[in-house]
């Protein structure tokens, strides 16, 4: 564990340096402990793969006090408290018409399209971080056989619901946006809906499984092509 100053009112807590479920669980547990320890002095928390950005109110407290409280809250941290996370199932229509890079990715991997689908949907992913855009959940780790680098030229427009791979991460685009990830399918579940409660089907620490569905099921669930 390492605590360093990030800005005039922010400390960064590093809880490891690799992407792993164990480090992620520590981040989760630390976020809960820090939130309880800082109370109203806390302005915002940004958990990520192996770190926790702690933003505090510099007019009500200072880095000495925040540092002391964070160290004592995280010192005897029991990662067991963070729990296993909920299991969330997300349906995906895997098909070249819904994932423009599916065939190219399969070819690059020396696999059939069916094999790529089988491998992608066989893994249980963990939500490591949420960011980039509202509701954009970074899921890992993708099986090395189907890991693929980002596109050399990002697309100007990736459709909402696009299921994509970049290196060993996978994600569902929550809204239309530019993007450089490899598109392999489409998910009809809304990943971010400001009007819904909760606004997102997943949270950091949750476990996600993708379930292959066919075209008609995809359309019946509200998916758009």
């Amino acid at each position: 564990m390492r605590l360093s100053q990030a800005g005039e009112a922010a400390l960064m807590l590093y809880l490891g340096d690799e992407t792993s479920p164990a480090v992620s669980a520590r981040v989760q547990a630390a976020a809960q402990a820090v939130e309880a320890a800082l109370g109203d002095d806390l302005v915002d928390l940004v958990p990520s793969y192996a770190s926790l950005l702690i933003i505090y109110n510099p007019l009500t407290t200072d880095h000495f006090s925040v540092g002391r409280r964070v160290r004592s809250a995280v010192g005897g941290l029991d990662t067991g408290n963070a729990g296993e996370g909920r299991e969330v199932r997300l349906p995906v229509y895997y098909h070249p018409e819904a994932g423009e890079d599916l065939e190219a990715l399969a070819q690059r991997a020396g696999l059939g399209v069916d094999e790529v689908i089988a491998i992608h949907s066989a893994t249980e992913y963990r939500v490591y971080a949420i960011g980039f855009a509202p509701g954009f959940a970074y899921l890992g780790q993708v099986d090395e056989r189907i890991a693929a680098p980002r596109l050399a030229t990002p697309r100007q427009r990736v459709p909402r619901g696009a299921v994509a791979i970049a290196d060993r991460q996978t994600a569902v685009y929550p809204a239309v946006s530019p993007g450089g990830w490899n598109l392999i399918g489409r998910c009809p579940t809304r990943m971010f809906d400001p009007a819904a409660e909760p606004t997102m089907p997943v949270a950091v620490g949750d476990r996600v499984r993708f379930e292959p569905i066919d075209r008609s099921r995809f359309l019946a669930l509200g998916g758009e092509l």
Partner: protein
Amino acid sequence: MVQPGLMSLLQDGGRYGQQRIGLTTGGPLDPEAFALCNRLLGNDATATAVEVSFGGLVLTATVDTRICVTGAALPLRINGKEQARWCVHRVGAGDEIAVDFLTAGTAAGCRAYLGVAGGFSVAPQFGSSSTVVREHIGGLKGEKLQPGDTLPCAASSGGPLRRLPEALRPVYGNSVVLRVIPGYQQAHFSPLQQRRFYSSEYTVSERCDRMGYRLEGTAIACDIEGILSEGICFGAIQIPADGQPIVLLNDRQTIGGYPKIGAALSLDVARLVQLTPGATVRFEAVSRDAAHNALHLAAHRLRTLPLAEFSL
């Protein structure tokens, strides 16, 4: 709303506590001018106002109320007649209020705040009315203001007319020194690279917006190309592969994987955002304790600046 101008956005104090679902903070780029606008009007410190970037805003009042314009020296006209900024004015239903474009060549800032007595009443989204266009969140429809929009506000009769004495108004020049709290991946920048960073003069590039101000000048090299994505605080100075610093602002992405050399002091960033492309920027390292003290002094000043009251 007759004409919205180049970019006019409803902003309150900003959206906090939502970064874990990926929502950025938004909020006024120049919180000092924003806060003084509300203080002059006797509003809550975070009441919703319009942030006018570069000017071109024309509104017609539909109620009798009081208004105030602070920030950049964008000329304020009421029914065509130029009126003082940093000063509360009464307007009546039917009056035309314009925040004009800046006259060329003046180093006079580019963000002004138009406030109204009681603030504009906009339903908060995720706890705030601040507009973040990239996220389609806040404001009236998650967008910048459009012709024909109605900005709801209550009628207000009477109330004090206050102004900020001229000597106390901020001066927006054509350069800024950003005090920097070293941090984040600072250790991955060699002593030589750090010296280059703190001794070079940078220019504000054309690529400057509410997400970040990209600067041009001496390229800074980092030992590492990227890091495991982590949270990014306000003012963080990111150094991408081309070595040109980017100061990250209110609408920044919440997490990212570029190395950062430190974070700029918010008080100085409020001056940076008033600059336009071509203006110059330098960096100066300060301790976190000095930064902390500066924040307290500035907050105290904002609360206690003596405002003059006048009546017509």
